[in-house]
């Protein structure tokens, strides 16, 4: 059995308290920083003339870049295990410093590139932060700190958005974003200073299992989490335009929805954090009703209440995924858990962007897809994840194994077919180049002698 050093969790109460305090404070400043930078990035893009397609393109490119980087680290996890402190602080600072440069650039391609770079740094940082939490704490403490960080980040998000709106309204138009992003960066760098006090020396000795003991469990949990996050991202893309364009809701309602949703998720983080998987399951079931509620409630004002409901239940559903990984952490390892969480998040973002672009304007279809995605996540959790399943655990484990094996076979077939197709294309291309060159040679000869 693979074991991990839980240095902080092993009776060192003072160390644990210090670690938790630093991580929560880091989340507090990071929340304001994110609101002032990433939160206003879309508005910045619009201000420099970006259209919806351009914004989606930036999101797509950056998500793809982060996904690639996270996948590379997953293949070579040893990158995480050497000089952890230096890399954690380095990427923490680098991610924040990138925002100094973004408002200075006006060229669309350059903005896409630098934002992709930021996303890459952000992904690596997320991996290191998850690795720090998953690598140093046990399951109970992971749940506790995740909930506290979520709640604190929610509060600081609200503060950050408040500051952002104030600055957007009162700063002069020229160099407005330079000032806001710089302020965000400075606050973000303050959280970097805080993170530099975290003792991660024990992570240097962390290992990871060469083979996962129960890969089917990780697979089912990942599959569920991707679908859930995908539905969450899609909801974000579709809901506000539906409210404003279709239901003719005022813009303050959209803003209130966002605020009430954040407040609900703060409360939900504290409420759901101590609950069992069976209780969280209820949140998941209720969350699946969200798209239907949004679709069938015609009064825009009522959507504020719906937002409270969906945010509250989504937090529970989200906790299922996070807590599952906290549990699997014991045998799956902090290294792979942390990387996989980032891959899942990026994958969900990457898939949701084109779906949103394709079906975003057809609200009926979009809400149907959303409902189906949430229902699928619910079915996956109810049947294939033993910890959450409504059926007997051993039966769920068997189903999970069947799903995993079939998916692996399907994946291998798909990879083989794709490989053959790509090779076929390359072969035809190679032959075409040879024949074209041959034609060129003899055409030249013919032109010379005639």
């Amino acid at each position: 059995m693979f074991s991990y050093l839980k240095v902080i969790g092993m009776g060192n109460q003072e160390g644990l308290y210090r670690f938790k305090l630093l991580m929560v404070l880091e989340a507090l400043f990071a929340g304001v920083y994110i609101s002032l930078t990433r939160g206003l990035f879309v508005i910045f893009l619009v201000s420099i003339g970006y259209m919806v397609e351009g914004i989606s393109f930036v999101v797509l490119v950056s998500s793809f870049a982060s996904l690639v980087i996270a996948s590379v680290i997953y293949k070579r996890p040893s990158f995480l295990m050497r000089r952890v402190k230096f890399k954690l602080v380095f990427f923490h600072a680098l991610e924040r410093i990138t925002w100094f440069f973004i408002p200075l650039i006006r060229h669309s391609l350059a903005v896409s590139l630098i934002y992709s770079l930021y996303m890459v740094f952000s992904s690596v940082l997320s991996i290191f932060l998850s690795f720090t939490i998953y690598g140093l704490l046990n399951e109970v403490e992971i749940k506790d700190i995740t909930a506290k960080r979520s709640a604190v980040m929610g509060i600081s998000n609200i503060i950050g958005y408040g500051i952002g709106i104030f600055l957007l309204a009162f700063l002069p138009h020229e160099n407005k974003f330079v000032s806001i992003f710089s302020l965000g960066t400075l606050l973000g760098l303050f959280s970097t200073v805080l993170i530099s006090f975290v003792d991660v020396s024990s992570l240097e000795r962390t290992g990871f299992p060469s083979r996962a003991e129960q890969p089917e469990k990780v697979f089912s949990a990942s599959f569920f989490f991707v679908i859930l996050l995908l539905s969450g991202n899609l909801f974000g893309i579709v809901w506000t335009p539906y409210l404003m364009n279709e239901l003719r809701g005022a813009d303050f309602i959209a803003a209130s929805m966002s605020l009430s949703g954040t407040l609900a998720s703060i409360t939900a983080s504290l409420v759901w954090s101590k609950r069992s998987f069976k209780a969280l399951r209820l949140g998941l079931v209720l969350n699946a009703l969200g798209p239907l509620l949004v679709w069938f409630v015609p009064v825009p004002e009522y959507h504020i209440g719906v937002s409270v409901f969906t945010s509250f239940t989504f937090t529970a559903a989200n906790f299922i995924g996070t807590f599952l990984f906290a549990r699997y952490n014991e045998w799956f390892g902090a290294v792979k858990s942390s990387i996989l969480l980032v891959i899942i998040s990026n994958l969900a973002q990457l898939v949701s962007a084109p779906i949103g672009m394709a079906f975003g304007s057809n609200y009926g279809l979009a809400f149907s897809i959303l409902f189906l995605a949430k229902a699928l996540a619910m079915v996956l959790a109810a049947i294939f994840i033993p910890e959450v399943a409504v059926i007997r655990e051993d039966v769920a484990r068997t189903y999970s194994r069947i799903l995993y094996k079939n998916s692996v076979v399907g994946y291998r077939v798909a990879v083989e077919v794709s490989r053959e197709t790509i090779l076929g294309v390359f072969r035809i291309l190679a032959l075409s180049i040879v024949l074209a060159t041959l034609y060129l040679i003899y055409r030249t000869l013919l032109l010379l002698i005639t």
Partner: protein
Amino acid sequence: MTEDIIRIIREILAQMAAETVRLIPKIFVTLVVILLTALVIKMINFSFRKLLKVARLDEAFEKLSGIALPFSLSNAIIWVADLGIALIASYGIVNIFLGAQYIQLFTEGIYYGARVLSIIALTLIIFTLFNTAIEKVRVETRLKGYMFFIVLLLVTAMLVDITALSDPVKNALITGLSLGVGISIGVFAAWFFFHEYLDRRFAEKQKG
């Protein structure tokens, strides 16, 4: 007398030297052309080999046609490409050294060479097809001999076309060969379709 000889030799040497000096730029350019040709051929060979290795042409041809060629198709393509480049280079060298009046001769030479090459290629293709047909269909030895005979006649007719014989002789030979091939195929077809009937008739006649 001796002075005359020396003067003549001097003139000859002077003329040779003058011609050599006149030819030096041409020789230099020719050397450059040859070097460039060698370089291009080397590059083409290298890149074609890599590309054809990716394309797996021989394997694909054998799999798709079911015919095993006696030579490598990839090598043949590389050889044809090299030949093309060599011909372009030769054209350039002829143009530099001999001038435009020899280009016509060169062109005729190329056409003649192309005819020879096409006959070789056709012969190879015919023999390959012949071999494949024999391997695929169980053919008895006599029939094999007959098919080989027809193929030889066809190849001979093509060879006659590139010989230096006069046109009437060529025409007469090719007409004769064509007639021979036609009659042979006709007789074979008659035997192939009606041999049972003919056997019966002959047997009846012998009895009667």
